[in-house]
């Protein structure tokens, strides 16, 4: 049974998961205090004949305390998150030397464009493989994400990557895997009646294995 996040295989996944755990602990404490407080008050101050409620309109010091503590905690969380966000999704955050691939979504498939023999994306020898994303482990991958028709969302849970694909826009998405294996792309944005089955296979290779696969693909075309 999966009670928590799936396995993380992204270099930046640890930072995302750390935020999850920080928020879980902080909100967990708030949750327990508030719920126990309510139940405690409900039991302790339940109606008793002849007792009168304590007449008060509030307390300024308490108001200041419970306004400023959450405010400081939340703003700190926002600033910490902003830094991680810029590292992952900032416009120029993709490391230099990333392997460039194209992903073009359409109802209900993911078409992946690979560079041809020249190794450069955007030239005439590029080739497209439907619903199969292959890439090497331990190398940053930079995907140029596009859509042909409606919104889709490129989601690989174990890589902690999700990005909407928007028709008319090319959106850079980068990640680096730390582990080889087979995974899936799912679509996370409602895109029509086939949304639920808009899946593609992800294969993360050892670098030499990727080169072999790539060479075979080039040769067969």
């Amino acid at each position: 049974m999966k009670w928590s996040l799936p396995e993380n295989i992204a270099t930046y996944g640890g930072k995302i998961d750390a935020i999850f755990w920080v928020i879980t602990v902080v909100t967990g404490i708030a949750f327990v205090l508030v719920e126990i407080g309510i139940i405690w008050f409900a039991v302790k101050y339940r109606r008793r004949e002849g007792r009168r409620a304590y007449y008060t309109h509030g307390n300024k010091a308490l108001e200041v305390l419970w306004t400023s503590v959450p405010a400081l905690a939340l703003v700190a969380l926002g600033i910490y998150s902003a830094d991680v966000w810029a590292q992952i999704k900032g416009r120029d955050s993709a490391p230099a030397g990333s392997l460039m691939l194209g992903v073009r979504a359409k109802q209900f498939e993911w078409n992946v464009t690979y560079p041809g023999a020249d190794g450069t994306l955007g030239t005439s020898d590029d080739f497209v493989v439907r619903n199969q994303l292959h890439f090497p482990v331990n190398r940053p991958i930079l995907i140029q994400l596009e859509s042909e028709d409606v919104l889709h969302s490129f989601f690989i849970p174990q890589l902690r990557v999700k990005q909407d694909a928007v028709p008319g826009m090319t959106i850079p998405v980068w990640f680096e895997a730390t582990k080889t294996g087979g995974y899936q792309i799912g679509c996370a944005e409602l895109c029509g009646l086939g949304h639920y089955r808009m899946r593609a296979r992800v294969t993360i290779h050892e670098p030499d294995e990727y080169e072999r696969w790539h060479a075979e693909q080039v040769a067969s075309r």
Partner: protein
Amino acid sequence: MATIVAEPTGRPVVREPHELSFIRKYIFSSDHKVIGIQFLFLSLFFLLAGGLLAMMIRWQLAWPGQPMPLGSLFPETMAPDGIMLPEFYNSLVTMHGTFMIFFAVMLLLVGVFANYLIPLQIGAPDMAFPRINMASFWVAVPAGLIALASFLVEGGAAGAGWTSYAPLSAMPEASGVSLGQQMWIVSLVLLGLSSILGSTNYITTVINMRAPGMTWMRLPLTVWALFITAILALLSMPVLTGAMIMLLFDQTIGTHFFLPAEGGQPLLWQHLFWFFGHPEVYVLILPAMGFTSEILANGSRKPVFGYHAMVGALVSIAVLGFMVWGHHMFQSGMNPLLATSFMVSTMVIAVPSAIKTFNWMGTMWRGNLHFHTPMLFAIGFVMLFVIGGLSGIFMASAPFDIFIHDTYFIVAHIHYVLFGGALFGIFAAIYYWFPKMFGRMMNEKLGKVHFALTFLFFNLVFFPMHTQGLAGMMRRLYQTTGYEHLEGLQWTHVLITISAFGLFLSGMLFAVNFAWSLFRGPKAPANPWNATTLEWQTPSPPMHGNWEEVPVVYHGPHEYSHPDVADKDWLAQNERPDVVSPARP
């Protein structure tokens, strides 16, 4: 510390001498109380309809591809052999959200209670614009009928989600829905008109028609919440209406606001929608916060803790509510720099909600708690709203939102806020004000059973969805099978669906209690809850014009257990200071 100020004495209400015809009295009525009750029946109908759609959604998720019970009643285009089609599933998801948000929760909170309560709680004989008020109801009725009828047209009802993201919503060739989507638009444009008409009226009434002595800081928190809500609705609804008309034009007359092939921009829809949508989120919760504050004070027999902070929190939510819409769009492809500023404003808007929660706890602290049904639902509101508020922080952090955006985590979050929050507040309010509306009490025992079962099943339905989301389960999937990372999770859908049936059945207890009490409930006294606000100081139900004599207000809104009052633990807002008996002679 009730400020007691001498005010002029009440003047008699000028009442129309003639008897109204049946049609003017009950159908095309301009009496705010009748309009509120009309909205109540309309919105409860949509609550039931939205609930039925949810049951069908849950069936498909738990047992994908199995014929639904009574499934043979559906035509081939929806469910051949009783097995739901993916396009019908999309329509169900879309219309469940649309019914619940726009026609059930929003109408219940604002249509029902703003109409019914504002004049009564501020001591006015009616609304400022009674005929505009009547129009706001009679525009909402066709809006609802059009939304319902859209299931019957070719292509079925709208299927692009309640958010109707373009270009899917703008391209019939991509969604398979054309007329249904257009009817969805027309329906919500009409509903927007209804909301604008209503809001204008509520704002004007609160500003201009308060009884003598009803200063701003003596307004019950329900009125404050409804007043702020009306401002939010008035400023945000026209944006939605404009966006809707652009979407309609894209579909029908060949414009390309949202279609990129001709130079349009799909993200424009999201910006417009959420510029409306985020204030709307607060429209859907602030009134429930108002009811809860007031009912907690009544049940605890204490003034609201931190009344000024509560008002301040409402006002700051209203201001900040217009600066956070981008947090719905972190993964949309908008400039990532924008996400940073929206993230900080979103973190800040969590603060007023925290203030309110602590003040609710402060209200219960050292009280003398009466657990009547409204009080139980109000406490339930606080307990569940806290969960919805805290889960929001996970999504407010843009980097973690990468993972949980568009998963069941957000489904859990929205239901904790809109069901655990808004709907619990609504149930509290219906049990509380039913005696005033209909002159009869609802059954307390049945109400308590309704509360216990709803609380239990609600958590069984929606808490596990957090876990599903953390496992990476995407939302709005017709079936979640076929994903390796979701293997072994099907049983959670079964658990949720069985609990959802339980939740629906506990809702039926409410329906039975409501219907039975309407005709057979014991007669209600004017003030069954020993409450302080003005509506309880006139008969149940109040006469046309509300008052024999316009009340004069001398006290704050929630003066319970005032030390200067000996014989009872409440002090009505209009009790004359010179007849209040002193506690310590």
